[in-house]
């Protein structure tokens, strides 16, 4: 019988010493000294040894009981660092990656993203964060994958567009999940500037007393048809201590081709009544 092969990656590197992301080996980022301002550029990984095809990110320890905590993190790169050399001249590869009270406490499993984005070998990786709270901290875990055994079967993106982020208030576009039912779609988060095919979602709230809940969110594009790009992305509040988590994938791989010029929307459902003022930011991978 003819065999249809699959791709896997034979190289990876991370910043948490191959322990779980909650380990102290992960990098703690500190927000700027004023609310909603980026902190200093922080080196995460020295120039990587191989080409990178996938970036996974997990945020944790960015929660405070009784306090609204939302972050937006820029993923920084120095493409000229060289293999094994720390970065010094940073550029933004993915801007304003959204997180909301990200936690690894019981009932929460970090706030996760998965970006199939190419970085060449020798690129150093860094990050910087802003928070609703001045000088607040969040733990940043990242793992890069490379050396695909079947590169012809490995679709990888060339750039990422962030849609719906408002940095002045560290927030996204309002979305109101239904209670035990899908809610209505949000207003448009924005318009695709490039053809896109891979989707990621950030969810936030503005609630000092978050309720234990489980949510599922969809991303769609096209003002009329609302074609589903990603479905059933999980977001959860694991305790009454304002601790949240989010999955990178939903019910399936978040893949759908969408043309430049179309708008992007989000809808969601919660098992119980949603937290206050929930908002969404979408990340569209092109290439």
């Amino acid at each position: 019988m003819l065999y249809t092969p699959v791709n896997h990656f034979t190289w990876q590197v991370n910043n948490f010493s191959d322990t779980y992301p909650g380990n102290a080996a992960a990098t703690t980022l500190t927000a700027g000294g004023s609310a909603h301002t980026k902190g200093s550029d922080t080196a995460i990984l020295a120039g990587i040894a191989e080409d990178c095809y996938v970036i996974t990110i997990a945020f944790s320890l960015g929660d405070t009981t009784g306090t609204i905590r939302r972050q937006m993190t820029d993923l920084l790169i120095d493409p000229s660092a060289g293999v094994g050399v720390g970065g010094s001249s940073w550029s933004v590869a993915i801007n304003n990656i959204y997180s909301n009270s990200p936690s690894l406490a019981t009932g929460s499993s970090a706030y996760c993203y998965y970006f199939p984005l190419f970085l060449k070998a020798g690129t150093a990786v860094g990050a910087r964060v802003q928070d609703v709270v001045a000088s607040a901290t969040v733990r940043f875990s990242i793992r890069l994958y490379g050396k695909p055994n079947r590169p012809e079967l490995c679709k990888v993106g060339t750039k990422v567009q962030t849609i719906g982020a408002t940095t002045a208030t560290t927030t996204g576009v309002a979305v109101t999940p239904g209670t035990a039912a899908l809610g209505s779609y949000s207003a448009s988060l924005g318009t695709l500037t490039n053809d896109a095919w891979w989707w990621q979602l950030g969810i936030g709230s503005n609630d000092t007393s978050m309720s234990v809940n489980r949510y599922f969110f969809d991303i769609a594009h096209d003002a009329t048809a609302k074609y589903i790009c990603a479905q059933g992305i999980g977001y959860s509040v694991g305790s009454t201590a304002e601790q949240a988590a989010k999955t990178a994938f939903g019910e399936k791989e978040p893949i759908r081709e969408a043309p430049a010029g179309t708008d992007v929307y989000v809808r969601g459902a919660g098992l119980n009544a949603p937290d206050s003022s929930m908002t969404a930011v979408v990340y569209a991978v092109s290439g």
Partner: protein
Amino acid sequence: MAQFAASRGAFTPVAHATQADNFVLTLLTAGNTARVKMYSWSGRGLTSTGFRTRWGRVNNTPATPTALTVSSSNPGVTPVASCNTYGTQATLAADPTALFAVDWNVLGGGGAIVLPIGGEWIVSGGSLGTAYNQIACGNIAGAEASTSAYTIQWEE
């Protein structure tokens, strides 16, 4: 995904050992990449003349760009990469080092290479002078006037 093309037609190349200015695919935005999907060369000369053309990674910092017109396969998508020539021309490593090189005859010669999926040439964005952010095409031999053409297509 969106693909783009730039071309030199009825072109008069400058034959040079290292300078490569038929065109230079350039990506200046860090965090972005572009993949070369196809490139071609062709001649319409009326006399037999040997040409040698190379495609390779730029190893200097060219300056003073002049942009070539870029065509887009997809409506509404603006390319991040550009295709240029330079006043201070791009250079390649000495021949035969190259991503690809070919000896051909401008008397009706030509070819087109479609790079395999997963085997594309990748340019990785960065400021001018950053390694791997430019791919150039130039002639080692062949400077006949207005008889050759060179095209590159890439994906973003």
